[in-house]
């Protein structure tokens, strides 16, 4: 809060005058609300909810200072299950609502919960604009490549040719690549996780929280009813080692069951190589989270084994994380600078304006 107002006084009084009150020793369960969770049994959302609740004690924020904001969709029910402040809004608009909240209450920890339809179809505009402004919120995009709540139509991330309720003869739309969209919008934190790897998901949630700016974390989430197994390639024990690659800053890009394959950069062209006597990990592409060019390349690892030659494993982890001024900070700074420059506001002078006359 930039200005001394009855709002800032009210909030500060409610905390006994201190905004720096000690953080209680929370456990994950403290963030579970009294509402029954109503997702379909086996839905990937359960794991994500659990991991977010588990991460909460580690973010170092009192729970009354945490707000979850969602749009519409299965994922959007999320705030009801968190014992924090929450706002289940309208389709696609969570990012815009979060922007208004964060700009006026920058001290709050604000989380946007959204889905592939919510963020990339109806809310696509707000998604890219939040990213370019770099509003300091954590953006969890639950991607299940299907419309679940409306019972099974294809989504903007459904692969072309998807047979769904609304596309019995196969979808014709080219699918969005969410991380490429986020990077294209100049997002400052772009990462991917999956419901079936809770430990990594937990790490990514904490990384997203640490980042100042819009932290976009795409989470592959299995819709057990309408799109079961959409991410099987990456989650099944059999295929997973060959089809996924976990990114770590400063480490070479290695994957495979026996950690015997890697990605090498031949000037600007990535290639999959086998590690052997001739090729050591030192020859591989070393992941650099701050390299936007390489982050774009990584986001294009988006094909499937059937695409044939040049097939790449799907990257998980932080593709890109850089510092850039976030919008809410800039707003506060500008407001304070104006206050300093113009001095204490004088409403009487403002009402009077530049030219007046008196009638006697």
């Amino acid at each position, binding site marked *: 809060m930039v*200005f001394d*107002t*009855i*709002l800032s006084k*009210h*909030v500060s*009084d*409610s*905390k006994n005058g201190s905004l720096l009150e000690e953080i209680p020793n929370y456990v994950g369960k403290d963030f579970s*609300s009294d*509402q029954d969770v109503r997702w379909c049994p086996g839905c990937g959302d359960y794991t994500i909810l659990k991991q977010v609740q588990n991460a909460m004690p580690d973010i170092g924020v*009192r*729970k*009354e*200072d*945490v*707000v979850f904001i969602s749009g*519409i969709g299965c994922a959007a029910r999320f*705030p*009801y299950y*968190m*014992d*924090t*402040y*929450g*706002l*289940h*809004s*309208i389709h696609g*608009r969570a990012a*815009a*609502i*979060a*922007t*208004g*909240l*964060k700009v*006026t*209450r920058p*001290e*709050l920890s604000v989380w946007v919960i959204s889905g592939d339809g919510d963020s990339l179809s109806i809310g696509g*505009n707000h998604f890219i*604009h939040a990213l370019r402004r770099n509003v300091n919120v954590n953006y969890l995009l639950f991607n299940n490549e299907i419309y679940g709540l409306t019972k099974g139509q294809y989504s903007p991330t459904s692969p072309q040719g998807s047979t769904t309720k609304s596309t019995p003869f196969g979808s014709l739309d080219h699918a969005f690549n969410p991380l490429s969209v986020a990077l294209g919008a100049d997002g400052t934190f772009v990462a991917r996780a999956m419901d079936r790897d809770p430990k990594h998901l937990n790490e990514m949630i904490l990384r997203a929280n640490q980042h100042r700016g819009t932290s976009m974390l795409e989470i592959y989430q299995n819709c057990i009813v309408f799109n079961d197994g959409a991410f099987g390639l990456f989650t099944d024990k059999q295929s997973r080692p060959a089809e996924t690659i976990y990114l770590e800053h400063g480490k070479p890009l290695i994957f495979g069951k026996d950690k015997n394959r890697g990605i090498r950069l031949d000037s600007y062209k990535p290639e999959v190589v086998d590690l052997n006597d001739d090729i050591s990990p030192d020859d591989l592409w070393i992941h650099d989270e701050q390299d936007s060019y390489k982050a774009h390349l990584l986001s294009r690892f988006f094909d499937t084994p059937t695409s044939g030659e040049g097939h790449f494993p799907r990257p998980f982890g932080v593709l890109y994380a850089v510092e850039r001024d976030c919008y809410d900070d800039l*707003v506060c700074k500008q*407001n304070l600078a104006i206050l300093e*420059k113009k001095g*204490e*506001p004088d*409403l*009487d002078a*403002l*009402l*009077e*304006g530049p*030219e*007046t*006359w*008196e*009638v*006697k």
Partner: protein
Amino acid sequence: MTKHSEYRDEVTIRFAGDSGDGMQLTGTLFTNTSALHGNDLRTLPEFPAEIRAPAGTVPGVSSFQLHFGSKEIMTPGDICEVLVAMNSAALKANLDRLKRGGTIIANSSGFDKKNLNLAKYPEGKNPLTDGSLADYNVIEVDVTKLTKDALADSNLSNKDVERSKNMFVLGLLYWMYDRSLESTINFLDKKFGKKPEIAAANIKVLKAGWNYGETTETFASRQVKVKQASIAPGKYRNITGNDATVLGLVAATKQSGLPLFFGSYPITPASDILHGLSRHKNFGITTFQAEDEIAAISASIGASFGGTLGVTSSSGPGVALKGEALGLAVMLELPLVVINVQRAGPSTGMPTKTEQSDLLQAVYGRNGESPVAVVAPKSPADCFETIFEACRISLEHMIPVMYLSDGYIANGSEPWRYPQVSDLPDIAVKFAPKSKEDEKFLPYKRDERLVRDWAVPGVPGLEHRVGGLEKQDETGNVSYDPANHQKMTDLRRNKRDKIADFIPEQEVDSGNEQGDVLLVGWGGTYGTIRTVAHELRQEGMDVSHAHIRYLSPFPKNLAKLFSGFKHVIVPEINDGQLVRLIRAELEIKATAINKVEGLPFGVEELKSRIHNELEMLNSKENSELELPHGI
């Protein structure tokens, strides 16, 4: 020749020229001088729809009408008696706004071959010489040449010389109406403080214009004096509707003690509110130019959820886009002010033209039963008080409020007896207090006004979830229970209706408390209807006027007030919207007078339409009376 003066109680002047001729500034300066002189006045600027229409063409004409007098002036005037035409396009575009027999002051160099061609006069035709203006009093002045002559010994560029020609016209008109040059000279000194040679040149041209009036034979005996009007004592300034809206928002910020968040997306004719507020950030105001209309209202809702007063502004098409989010604010029961500066619709319609056709959209235009409060300012200065009221109602009743201004009052200006901050009422904000240990917080628990507390993030113990899904009474949990939905629908409606206990009763603006005819208006038609009511009473008719600021809910006494009149007539700049509300909500028989031309009613026009309606009503009545004999 001796010069003598004629006294007049009202004058309407129209300044017209190319967009680059500075007619808006000329009109504004004449307005300020007249206000300082003590006249009552109203103004109406008219801009071209195109940003930079080709110079010299009809679409590029910009005009400014000023109506001033020594009596009460409530409208910018139907038609003018003096038309300043800086070029032939300006004459072509505005001749139908000039009274027969009126005066045309024409800049003759704006009627050369090139300008006549640009204005698309037929080859070889010049209205100044072909006799087509025989019904008018034409005064040709070579403003361009006289300006150049006045600045012959200056070092200014041709462009700068050319640009000061509007000052010549202003000086001439100052002479014609016996005005002081002082205020304009002060303005020029201030405006060109860093370029004293430009200030000096403009002042020189201004004086040259005055001197031309005084010394030229043509103008002898043409000096007209308009005395001071009897205006309520106090300190005044001029203000446009959009500027008054800005100041009202700043005042509401101060009087509520809250910060204000203003989310907006540029749209004609509302953008000036965004421009204005963005200059006052030191008053605890944050402005946000969103990516679209939906983001603008959504961000404002986010701010309101956090305990800030959220305000969003737009015009009709943008408000349509905001509809769904406005419904969310209804469900959340959060404060939110939605400003709609109406323009001619539907769709993109006529962005620069005025209309009052979004009233039903404001009252009903959302999915589901979605009650909001609706208020409308009646004049440029009234925007201040009305937007303040919108903020008060929204904050004190935790409900979205739609504020319906329109293009006519948004851009029009009038003198404003501005208040002192100490005169302004306080706005009472009630935040939910920190909950007691072990007591479950109920976000939708209500007080006797059916208003819930504002529970803002950051307060321990009040963690709660709200959303667009129907919610259980008191707990706010999601509920699909049939009886609960009925109850919540009733509660939301009753909460809106209860606002009527906290707004003033409707008063008659002028005329008797009961009688023959009541003219009922809302919004920007105020000045015209007030003038019409006054003139009809002078004709001996029993006519009263009531102007409704609170359109939803209506003031409690409205039906009773209406029932005291034989005829209720509702003039509106739409196809009949308030009249439908009156018939439906109050079950009162009312007669509609409508106009949808993108223009306000003229006084004469409205008077004659009222006469016609009354004639029809009376003959119908007579025939009904005669009916039994006829059977």
